[in-house]
């Protein structure tokens, strides 16, 4: 050490560490759980610098007894609530079946969204059906809420001859323009500036449609996030930017995205846009916040960042084992419960639902998913021959196939022929 520095205290590097590792007992008693109904609901035209406390608290509507309370209660009618519950339960049924299909070797890969169904389903219900969504890979609830055919989703997962993406994309990287669902990329948060650009285009054209985008808390660390926030605020783009804070980015806890020091909603403040922090397991809070942000966007008041505080109840993907890095007890200890159960209890408390109907619906949804799976498997499963024609891999790189790709296409066909395939 240099002599002049010898009397200075040594610096130390802080490396975040999650509270619980495998073998630890998960205890979330120090997590702040603001009471339902306690957060104020500002006017949608409120100035961006007035959201400070909303970026640090949690907007919650459903209380412990299943009642919807406070200024954010969206006062949905029972039919809408039942539709919401049904879509969320369908996402879960679909996830269960496709996870199993991967374990059975019918496809290479799958990602569940268990525990996060409200974040996609309730948000989608608060948007118009032709608003454009720029999702990450964990918002399959958008497609299911908008009535995209389950069989087509499965065809994509199986990369079979019915796959609308022609077997080119990893399972779950859906694309469905007609359903307002932008092509999913494997590269994290690239969809954020794209959503802002779509929203800017809509505004520039005098359209009335808005854009919504989703990313996980881990990928807020990407440069695209910063660029998107800057563009959104500069041009007052009609966009809703959702951060799904499910506490985990594969094995890295949210502290590695900066959560030890602040909330993700609070980032809105520095950019000068509205920021809301929502109980992501409270479907009504998610709906209300999205509805609020949509109205703000539609009235040219600008963008909103919504942090959905939730918990990734399962592994990151079928290639992941969460017990290798976190306490096995975490999902059950999570103080905000399960979004499907909470919405179910609300409907029951309203006298609009009961356990028997719920159990029957679960059975019906499981059957529906099973039927869709049988239908999809008629088009083939991964690696069983009923795939897209090999030479189709050269299509769509460009609008027209240039000479060098035609040559390579012929080379591949000749190779296959010579090999007797």
């Amino acid at each position, binding site marked *: 050490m240099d002599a002049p520095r010898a009397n200075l205290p040594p610096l130390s590097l802080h490396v975040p560490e999650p509270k619980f590792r495998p073998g630890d007992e998960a205890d979330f008693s120090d997590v702040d759980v603001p009471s339902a109904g306690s957060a104020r609901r500002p006017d949608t035209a409120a100035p961006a610098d007035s959201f400070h406390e909303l970026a640090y608290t949690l907007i919650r509507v459903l209380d412990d007894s299943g009642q919807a309370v406070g200024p954010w209660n969206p006062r949905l009618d029972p039919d809408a609530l039942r539709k919401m519950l049904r879509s969320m339960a369908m996402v879960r049924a679909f996830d269960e079946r496709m996870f199993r299909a991967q374990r059975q070797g019918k496809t290479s890969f799958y990602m569940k969204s268990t525990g996060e169904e409200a974040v996609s389903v309730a948000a989608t219900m608060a948007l118009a059906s032709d608003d454009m969504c720029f999702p990450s890979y964990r918002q399959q609830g958008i497609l299911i809420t908008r009535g995209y055919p389950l069989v087509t989703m499965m065809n994509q997962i199986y990369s079979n001859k019915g796959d609308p993406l022609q077997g080119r994309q990893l399972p779950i990287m859906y694309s469905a*323009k007609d359903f307002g669902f932008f*092509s999913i990329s494997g590269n994290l948060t690239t969809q954020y500036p794209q959503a802002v650009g779509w929203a800017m285009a809509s505004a520039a054209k005098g359209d009335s449609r808005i854009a919504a985008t989703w990313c996980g808390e881990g990928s807020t660390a990407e440069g695209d996030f910063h660029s998107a926030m800057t563009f959104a605020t500069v041009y007052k783009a009609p966009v809703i930017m959702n951060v799904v804070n499910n506490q985990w980015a594969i094995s890295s806890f949210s502290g590695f995205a900066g959560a030890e020091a602040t909330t993700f909603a609070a980032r809105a403040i520095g950019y000068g846009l509205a920021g809301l922090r929502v109980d992501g397991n409270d479907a009504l809070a998610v709906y209300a916040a999205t509805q609020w942000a949509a109205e703000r966007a539609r009235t040219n008041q600008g963008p909103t960042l919504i942090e959905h505080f939730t918990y990734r109840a399962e592994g990151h993907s079928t290639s992941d084992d969460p017990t290798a890095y976190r306490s096995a007890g975490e999902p059950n200890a999570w103080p905000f419960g399960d979004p499907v159960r909470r919405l179910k209890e609300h409907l029951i408390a309203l006298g609009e639902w009961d356990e028997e109907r719920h159990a029957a619906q679960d059975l019906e949804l499981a059957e529906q998913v099973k039927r869709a799976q049988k239908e999809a498997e008629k088009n083939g499963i991964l690696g069983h021959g009923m795939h897209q024609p090999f030479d189709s891999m050269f299509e769509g790189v460009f609008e027209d196939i*240039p000479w060098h790709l035609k040559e390579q296409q012929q080379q591949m066909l000749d190779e296959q022929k010579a090999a007797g395939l």
Partner: protein
Amino acid sequence: MNMIQAINSAMDVMMERDSDVVVMGEDVGYFGGVFRATAGLQAKYGKTRVFDTPITEIGIIGVAIGMGAYGLRPVPEIQFADYIYPALDQLVSEAARLRYRSAADFTAPITVRSPYGGGIFGGQTHSQSPEGIFTHVSGIKTVIPSTPYDAKGLLIAAIEDNDPVLFLEPKRIYNGPFHGHYDRPAKTWADHPGADVPAGHYRVELGKAATVRAGEAVTILCYGTMVHVVANTIEEMGIDAEIIDLRTLVPLDIEAIETSVKKTGRCLIVHEATRTGGFGAELSALVQERCFYHLEAPIERATGFDTPYPHSLEWAYFPGPVRIGTALKKLLKD
């Protein structure tokens, strides 16, 4: 017109014809661009069609892709090609793959304009030629003009093209065709036939090379500034070379290359970019594969050296008349 005026005219023509064409980038709006390429466009078409952006290349390209997905036809500018790297993920992972990965459900009809190349004492970060990075990417077209006429016609074709196009503008020849001699007075476009640019709409088709000069002794493959340096060098040396200006690197005009090399039996490749892994290596491989039995000498490459672009040592780095001449003498020695 000089090349800047031609590029400006191309955007003007396209904005007039198609209300979905929008121009965006750092300093392109009110100010009209650091090279004046977008001068007057905002005043004419308004701020929602020509607008200044925050200084974030990721954002500029990402937002342009989103606008393209909506149905617009964005023409984003990256102020210098040396600053395109922050946007690499959006270009490589998104723009280039969007059509493919979505089976044409979504497309990215964007034209990314960017000044590139050296010869202006731009040092390390105002001189680079990154075309080889992009020619390696499936799904993106790479276009480089060498005259005002081509610049306008190619830029119009690029904007009308439904695929993402990287349009690299050789800034050394914005104001005149560079002869390669830094110590002699600069030329202007005034007496060059390529400066005769129609005011209205016309296209120079993408994927087609131009034979700048027909010759018998050797084929020289080049593009951008180097087209003029090469033309001047062979004139000074009295060599009957055939000069092919590639104009589009992807998709490449392989027929023009093959026909010429089979005729001359010799091939020199010239580019400003660094040698290793540069586009010249691809050209060399293609010529070797397709013209092997017609070659009378090994293919030569006159390129930038495999170093970052140096400031005060620029003229020892730049592949000017001396390096090109040496390569030609070697190629033609027997």
